[in-house]
Structures are given as structure tokens and as C-alpha cells.
């Protein structure tokens, strides 16, 4: 009886019944706000994948006896983070639940749970194939049913840049219907409609299973959302993966005009390594992140002057991942590689690096990892961005247009 009462009191204190009620509220002029248990909620989040030095993405950190999320959660709370984004749940449901519960009960940090939607399966994700669809649907609904009653769950994100497979050269796939179409542009359109219809079907099923949490579409930029607008009425919001340098440009207005939904900046950020000068540069990372967060805040529903369709963001990412540069080489996982994997001119400080490759995948962490162990895990050292964003969140100073529109 005492235990039950204690649980009830704790639950009340946390403002949550067994499961939080999360929904999106639409105001006039397509302004959107995320509401959690009746109160507005700004997502101040971070993408979380605490792979230790020397291991790679296959490592089951959820079951790590040293519980890295406890150290991370404390640091996150002190910074002001209220949400983490997980790309895909681990294999062991009890371990996953423990992480979600620990972060929420100890630090008030909620979890956005995602699914790759089979994007990285070999040979490629056949979104037009019924058997593949059924397999992914079973996995996604399994995830929802397992975790929907966790008070720490905030929302679901379906996919992560999977839309590029419809248009570009990333994980290309096809179907009989697509193959019959000779025009390459129409092929792209067909693939997009197949993919977004499938995601919509998933969203519809999730809503049936879990009416308490919104379903987001994890989209790379806004590419393809004109098709989503035609075939995805059950998607609640767009979780956008975007790397446009110091701000997001006109994305908020563009989204309103193509697929009128709230937007979560689900993956954005900057690395902390200058590929041109070949040295760590925490300042530039902090500079980009502060500017990006400022634009997020300028476009929240709470800010009158902006587009007001943004609900927050989950920046990329909490800690460095040393395995990323040479994924197939275990020796490289023990080295903090400084070689860059890709090029992006919007991060202009080091674009003059050789071959213009300036994006250092292993250096995106808000906290750096060191080989020194502390409580059994790699020691975390917050980078400058940690402090700059913490101060920004405490007192978000926005640029407001002083001049009224003369229209």
C-alpha cells in the first residue's frame, strides 16, 4: 500500500500518469505547439548514441552495466536538455525501458524513439515490396506496443533521411511498378509516393495502438514532402534532418507551403574539428549551434514574430562517436579520426580543407570522450557548445524584427 502510494505521489510529482499525454495544438495561421500533459513543451533535445571508444554501433550500450546514461543524464539536466532522440531501440526491451525510466525519473528527460524502417538492411529497403512492408510494420508496431506506456516517451519518429532513397543515389530500391516507368523523373515520383504512403500507413496503425504520442516523419531536408502532402494525412509532424550551416534558411515557411505540419529540427549541428587548420575548434561548433538554436526559438509558436511552426530540436549529438570514420576497421574505432567523410559548403570556416571535405563525423559531440575511464565509462568533457547553449536556453535572446512589415 505504501509502495503504491509512493508510486502515485512520484508519478504526480513528475506530472505524469503511467503514460504522458502528448499532442500537437494548432493555432490560427498554422502556428503549432507541442503540448505535454496539458502544458506547452519546447523540445530542447540532443541525439543520443553513447558508443564507447573502441566499439561501434553494434554495441548494446543499453545493457552496459556502467549505465552511461546516468552520467550523461545528469550532465544533460544541468545543461537544460529535456529530451533525447534515439534512432532505434536496442534489442533488449527491458534494458531499453530501464534507460527511458532512469532518464525520466531521475532527470525529467523524455525520449523520442525512432525506427530506421529497415533503411540499412541488405541489399536495400524495398518499400514497394509487401513482405518487406509487413516486416517493417511488425517491428514498428512492436516497438510502439513495448514502450508506449513509458511515461518518458515523447513521440515516435519514422525513418531518418529515408526519403533520399527515392530520389538520389542513397540505398536505391525499385519495384515492378517503378521498373515499368521509363521516365526517370516519374520513377522518382512513384518511389516517393510508395514510400510516403507506406509511412502514412504506419502512422495510422500507430495512432490506433497509441493515441497518446504523435508520429513524426524523419525526413532529410524537405525533399519529397510535396508527395507526402498528397498521401500522408496521418503524419503529425515533420522531424527534419538538416545541415545548412548557421541557420535553417527559409525552411519554416517552405514547410508551411508544402506540407503544413509542425516541425522538429531532429538532426542538425556542427562538428568541433577544423579540417582546414587540422585542429579541434570548439568555438566554431558553439557559434553554429547557438545560431541554429536561436533560429529554432525565433520560430516557436511562443514567438510572435516568426513562422511559429517549430516545436524545438534535437541537435546532433551528445557525445563523439570514434567508430564512424572507418566503420569496417575495428582498429580505427580506438582512434579519434580527423579525416573528414563529407563536404558541406555551409560550414564555411573549414571548407578550404583538402577536397573540400570538412565534415568530421567523429567530432559532433557536445561532450568529448577521453580514453580515461570514470565510473567505468569514457570520461565526458563538455565542449564550449555545452556552456553556450546552456546560457542561451536560460535566457534566449532572439533577433526580433524591429521594422514592421510595410505590406
Amino acid at each position: 500500500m505504501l509502495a503504491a502510494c509512493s508510486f502515485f505521489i512520484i508519478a504526480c510529482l513528475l506530472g505524469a500518469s503511467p503514460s504522458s499525454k502528448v499532442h500537437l495544438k494548432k493555432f490560427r495561421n498554422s502556428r503549432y505547439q507541442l503540448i505535454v500533459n496539458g502544458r506547452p513543451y519546447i523540445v530542447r533535445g540532443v541525439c543520443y548514441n553513447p558508443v564507447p571508444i573502441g566499439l561501434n554501433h553494434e554495441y548494446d550500450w543499453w545493457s552496459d552495466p556502467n549505465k552511461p546514461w546516468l552520467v550523461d543524464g545528469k550532465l544533460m539536466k544541468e545543461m537544460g536538455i529535456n529530451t533525447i532522440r534515439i534512432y532505434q531501440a536496442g534489442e533488449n526491451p527491458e534494458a531499453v525501458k530501464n534507460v527511458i525510466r532512469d532518464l525520466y525519473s531521475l532527470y525529467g528527460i523524455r525520449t523520442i524513439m525512432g525506427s530506421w524502417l529497415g533503411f540499412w538492411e541488405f541489399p536495400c529497403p524495398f518499400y514497394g515490396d509487401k513482405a518487406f512492408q509487413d516486416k517493417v510494420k511488425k517491428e514498428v508496431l512492436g516497438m510502439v506496443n513495448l514502450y508506449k506506456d513509458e511515461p518518458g516517451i515523447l513521440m515516435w519518429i519514422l525513418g531518418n533521411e529515408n526519403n533520399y532513397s527515392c530520389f538520389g543515389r542513397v540505398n536505391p530500391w525499385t519495384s515492378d511498378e517503378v521498373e515499368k516507368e521509363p521516365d526517370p523523373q516519374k520513377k522518382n515520383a512513384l518511389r516517393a509516393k510508395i514510400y510516403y504512403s507506406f509511412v502514412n500507413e504506419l502512422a495510422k496503425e500507430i495512432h490506433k495502438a497509441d493515441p497518446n504520442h504523435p508520429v513524426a516523419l524523419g525526413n532529410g531536408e524537405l525533399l519529397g514532402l510535396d508527395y507526402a502532402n498528397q498521401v500522408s494525412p496521418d503524419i503529425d509532424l515533420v522531424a527534419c534532418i538538416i545541415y545548412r550551416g548557421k541557420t535553417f534558411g527559409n525552411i519554416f515557411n517552405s514547410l508551411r507551403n508544402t506540407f503544413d505540419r509542425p516541425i522538429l529540427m531532429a538532426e542538425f549541428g556542427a562538428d568541433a574539428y577544423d579540417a582546414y587548420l587540422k585542429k579541434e575548434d570548439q568555438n566554431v561548433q558553439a557559434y553554429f549551434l547557438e545560431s541554429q538554436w536561436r533560429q529554432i526559438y525565433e520560430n516557436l509558436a511562443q514567438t510572435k514574430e516568426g513562422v511559429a511552426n517549430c516545436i524545438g530540436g534535437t541537435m546532433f549529438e551528445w557525445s563523439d562517436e570514434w567508430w564512424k570514420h572507418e566503420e569496417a576497421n575495428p582498429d580505427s574505432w580506438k582512434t579519434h579520426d580527423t579525416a573528414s567523410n563529407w563536404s558541406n559548403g555551409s560550414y564555411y570556416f573549414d571548407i578550404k580543407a583538402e577536397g573540400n571535405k570538412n565534415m568530421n563525423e567523429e567530432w559532433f559531440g557536445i561532450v568529448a570522450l577521453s580514453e580515461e575511464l570514470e565510473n567505468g565509462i569514457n570520461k565526458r568533457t563538455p565542449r564550449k557548445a555545452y556552456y553556450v547553449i546552456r546560457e542561451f536556453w536560460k535566457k534566449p535572446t532572439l533577433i526580433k524584427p524591429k521594422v514592421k512589415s510595410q505590406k
Partner: protein
Amino acid sequence: MKDKKLKFLILNCSFVFCVLGFALTCFAQDGKKLEELKGQYFKEAKFTEFVNYLKGVAEKDKSLEAEANYYIALARYHQLKYLEEKQSWDEYFNEGNTYRDEMTAGAQKAIDETKANDALNVKAHLVLWQFHHDQQDVFAQDALSNLMNSTLEYAKATKDLETIKEVADKLSSYGEKGKSRQLYKIYAQELLSSETKDGELKRIADAFYKEENTELAETIYDAYIERIAKEDKEKLMPVLIGIAKSFAYKDEGPNDPPYAEKIFNKIEELGGKESFDEALIYLRAFNLEKSKEYAKAKDSYLELIKRYPDSDQANEANFKLGIIFTYILRDAKSGKAYFQELAQKKAASAYVISGLYQLGLLSQWAQDSGAAQAHYNELIEMAKSDFPDKVAQARERLKEIQDSKLIEYNLKTFLDASLKEEYTALDSAKSNLRSHPYIAKKDAQVQITSGIQSAQSGCMQVEVQFLWSGDLGENAPGPNQPAFKTTYKSPGTKMVNLVVVSPTGIIDRNIDLLDVR
């Protein structure tokens, strides 16, 4: 006693008036000096000192408040840029919010305190727009629209062309070409409606051309052409020819090939094709070739060899026609005819040699080894010790035939992509290939660069390979090089070939032509 008091009072009053007068004179000088002072403070990056001084000026003299506020905004705008450039991060993170606030507040106050006919109003709108544009925030669009409205209103109210030009120049430098053109037109119209004489108008346009402000020069030339066309049609033709020559492609100095072609069209409309002499036809063809308007360049080269078959440029025109027909228009049959025309010539020249090589190459690709060998051997025999690069290429091809090997991989891929029907979708629209300079000297460095317009792929970068072939000079760029530098040892038109390949297949193919003279 009364007199003493009166004298004292008068003296006191005089002193007060003197001090007031002196102060007012100083403040008036402050106003005049602000622009000058700005230069000094900015040069030494003493932005905060300047802002503090301006705050004092605004407090002392209300009439200078608007001006002081504008300069505060300008100072903070430049200060933020300076801090970013110099990476003075401590000040940036500590004071950035204050500076941003003072920037927007200063500009807004300057706008509120001035009227539409005040240049300061326009300038305050300008710096505010620049700020939002640089921040890439959602307010940039509104700020731009406000800037345009205030400038247009200002243009109606005053004859101050310099401020309008200042805004247009800034818009142009930020890539807002539509908007800058709109303002440049107003600038040009004001010049036309004023007493400006024809010669003066042309002088102004020439001056902007020399300053490399081609956008404004073109607007004024257009107005000038319009005026001449109404007044003196006979005078128009030499004017048009002069302008077309100025704007036609050149490796250095101001030029705008699409504008030159617009003027070439006017010349043709006015006087027909006959109004083009040999040099002008060649110039038009070359200008179109450098604009990558190959189909139109082909028409001009055809016109050149039709009207001036003995032209010094006839061989070059024949060779380029062969290339354009074969590799751009995918009409190898017509292309070969031009190479054959060259091959029939007895005297060895860079174009005859290159024509023979192309005939050999096309025969080899079509698996007609006998014909290919004959062309390559003829080339080697004719070249003797000249044209070593082409001779080397011919020998390499001959060896492939003798060893029953396929054509070198990059070159064969390019030929397949350019000549096989299954690749007709590869129309060079997704890639860009440029050389600099286009008219190079022997042994001088040439920079060759490529660009790819690939579908978005976010942070999942697609690894592409660059398969270079053709006339690559003394360099042998690898598949990971999107650009390279090279030199050429012999004269003639050099054809650089590129095929861009991703893991899922060929993205595009492209060619570039440059002339070594």
C-alpha cells in the same frame, strides 16, 4: 552698482551664448564628420568606442539622433562581422546579443526618426536587411521588401542617384539581381530624363563597365541604345558592334557572354547576317561556345565557313563543328564529315592532326580497326616531330589495336556515354566543366574544374568518381579529383572529356574546349 551688475549680467550672457554657439557648431561639425569618423574608427576596428561616442552625440544634440542611431547600427553590424571573421569568440559569445540588439534598435530608431525623402531612412533599411540576410533568418524577406519600398519611395521624392545606386550595388553584390536591376533601371531612367547628352550617357556606361559593374553598365547601354535607335539609326550599328565586342567572352576583364549575344541578336535584327564580318562571326561563335550554347555556336561556325571558307579560323571552325555534331548533338555521321574535310588537307596543322585523331578514334570505337589504324598512321606520318601529344595519343590507340585491347577505360566510357543511344539522357545538364583560361599559351598553366548537381543526399555523401579523358595535357588527374591544373605543349583546340560516375551508375558526361595558341 547697477551698472556693474548689468555689465556682469551682459558678460555672463555673452559667455553663455558663446559656449552655446561653440557647442552647436561642434555638434554640427559632428554631424558632418560622422561619415569621416566612421572610416577612422572602422579602420582601427574600434567599433565600441565609436558607438560610445555616437551615444554621446545623440544625447547632446537631438537633431543628430537619427544619424547617430544609424551609425550605431552600422557599427554593430560591422563589429559582429569582424568578430566572426577574426574569430574573437569570447567577445562574440559575451556581447553578441547586446550588439545584435543595438544593431536592430539603432536601425529602427533611424527609420522612425526620418522621413521617406531622407537618404538615412534608405540606408537604415539597407543595413537592417543586410543584417537579416546575413543571419539567414525569417525576417530577411520582410526586410528586403521594406528596403525596396523605401528606396522606390525615396527615388520618387528626390533626385539623389547615388543613394539609389548604393542600394542597387549592394543588392547586386548579394545576388539579388532582379531587385538590383529594378533600381539600376530607375538610375538609368533618371539619367535619361535629365539633361545628360548621348556622349555623356555612353561615358557613364563605359565607366561602369571599366569598374566591372556590368549589370549597371548594361542597363545604361540599353537605355543609350534605345535613345540612339530613336534618333540616329545609322549611328546605331557601330555602337552595337562596339558593345557586343566589349561584353563577348574574354578570360580577363569585364564580360557577359549572354548580354553580348543579346546585342549580337540586335545587330542581326537591324542589318541581317550580312552586317557580320569574318571577325564578328567568329567572335559570336566563340562567345556562344564559351556560354556552352553549342547548338547556336554551331550555326555561327557554319556561317563562318560558308561565307569565309578561306578564313584563318576555318580549320578551327571545322574541327569544332566536328566535335559539336559528334559529342554534343550525338550526330557522329555529320561530325565525321567535318573531320574528313580537315583530313583531306595536305598541310599539317593542329586541326588537321586532331581531325585525323578523331577519325581514328571514332573508327576504333566502331570496331573498324583497319580504318582506325590508317588514320592514326597518317596522323603520325603527317605530324613528324610536331604535335607530340597527339602523336603519343595515336600511338597509345594503335597499341590497343595491336594488343587487341579495348580503348582506355575512361576514354571508352566517355565515348559510350556520348555515342550510344542508351545514354541519350546524359545531356551535360547535371555537370559543369570549365577551363581557365580558355585561350592559353603553350606551357602556361590551365585550371580545369568540374561541378556536379547531384540529387540531395544529406549527410550520406555519395562518393562520385571523375573519369577524365581527352586532351589532359601534362597532367593525369585521378578519379577522386574534381579539378586539376595542367599545361599543353602544342597548339590547337583541346578537348577535355569527363564522365562522372556514382556507385549506381553514370551521373553525367561533359566536354570542354580550350584553345592553345
